């Protein structure tokens, strides 16, 4: 079982569209893992049925019992997050501001405070198109995207892949460079960096690439919308050459991408015979080849 993690640093480069196409091609031989838990989209492209749901708990917030509260204000004095306010004859906690540090809990002289574990999201295992399976999640509103939910989704995907003897886990990573991305990258056999031929695409590619270097991960790159700006494409290629990151594909700015997106289909499902689809299919083969070579 090999894991391919697709990340981009910047949003809107086509990362999810491409991961979905790879999943569609690999079909029942892959488990898909949607780690973009903050604004998950893969389920739309792959027709997920949200079959199996479980609650996900993470983080705590304090709750003050107004019956036990004597309004002494000790909690208010220690809270660094402005989460506690006084209301009439009791103190109350703002659940959005509460950081869950439980300092107030430590100091309350009347045991009026309890720490309550929060339901931070839902984890799903779905059946998807072409006989595949997908682990994904929905982060709760105002929940902290600590990376823990991502870790949970990853572990569900991996366990499923091992149990059902699948060849691949295809992970759609989170945007950015913080905890959720780091969590998405954990255990990857290969990282696919998706970038676009724009000034901001190059900028964000460099930042997220540094992250992969920290974890010593093997990377390849796909340059999307390459013909939008040849100057930037060349700059991207120069950067990647210097870093010895192979470019496995250069995809043109193609309305097919958007048309497929607009009706929520992976490109290879929408128009399998198009040049774009054929390129994507070849790219996935290349990626698999590179992984297999790495393992030797």
């Amino acid at each position, binding site marked *: 079982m090999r894991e391919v993690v697709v990340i981009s640093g910047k949003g809107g480069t086509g990362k999810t569209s491409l991961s979905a196409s790879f999943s569609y091609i690999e079909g029942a031989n892959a488990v898909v893992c949607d780690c973009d838990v903050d604004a998950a989209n893969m389920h739309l492209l792959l027709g997920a049925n949200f079959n199996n749901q479980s609650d996900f708990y*993470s*983080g705590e917030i304090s709750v003050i019992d107004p019956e036990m509260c004597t309004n002494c204000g000790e909690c208010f004095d220690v809270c660094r997050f402005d989460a506690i306010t006084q209301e009439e004859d009791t103190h109350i906690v703002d659940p959005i501001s509460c950081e869950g540090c439980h300092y107030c809990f430590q100091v309350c002289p009347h045991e009026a405070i309890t720490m309550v*574990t929060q339901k931070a999201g839902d984890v799903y295992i779905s059946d998807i198109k072409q006989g595949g399976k997908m682990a994904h999640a929905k982060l709760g509103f105002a929940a902290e995207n*600590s990376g*823990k939910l991502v870790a949970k989704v990853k572990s569900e995907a991996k366990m499923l892949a091992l149990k059902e003897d699948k060849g691949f886990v295809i992970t759609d990573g989170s945007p950015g460079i913080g905890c959720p991305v780091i969590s998405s990258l954990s*255990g990857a056999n290969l990282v696919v960096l998706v970038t676009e031929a724009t000034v901001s695409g190059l900028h964000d590619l460099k930042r997220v690439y540094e992250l992969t270097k920290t974890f010593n991960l093997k990377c390849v790159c796909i340059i999307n919308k390459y013909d939008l700006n040849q100057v930037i494409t060349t700059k991207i290629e120069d950067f990647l050459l210097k870093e010895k990151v192979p470019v496995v594909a250069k995809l043109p700015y193609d309305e097919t991408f958007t048309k497929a997106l607009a009706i929520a289909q992976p490109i290879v499902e929408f128009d399998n015979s198009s040049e774009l689809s054929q390129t994507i299919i070849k790219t996935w083969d290349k990626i698999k080849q590179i992984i297999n070579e790495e393992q030797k």
Partner: protein
Amino acid sequence: MKIVFTTKGTTWDSQMDPRFGRAETFLIYDEEADTLETVVNSETEAMDHGVGPQTTKKVLGLGANVIITGNGAGQKALEVLKSFDAKMYVGAGDMTVEEAYEAYKANKLQLQF
């Protein structure tokens, strides 16, 4: 030597747990006394972050000289281990506890640091 295994069960036939920080169970084998002790690691379920170092502290508190596991420990946990002269062996993630011990004795496991 006291050897700690990260496991999914409590006997020599049990499967190893490839994880360290969030491993389900620790089996402690005292080579001299030939005893096998079980320590559960369930409190890490509720923790969001920083599990590695906490688990490391726990394991060292059990008197471990050698830790045998699958994937290994993260940066923070490794640093704690280094300052205590304990050795971490990896690569036993898919084995049973017995197989893992034999592999360790036969020098077939890798030292993580």
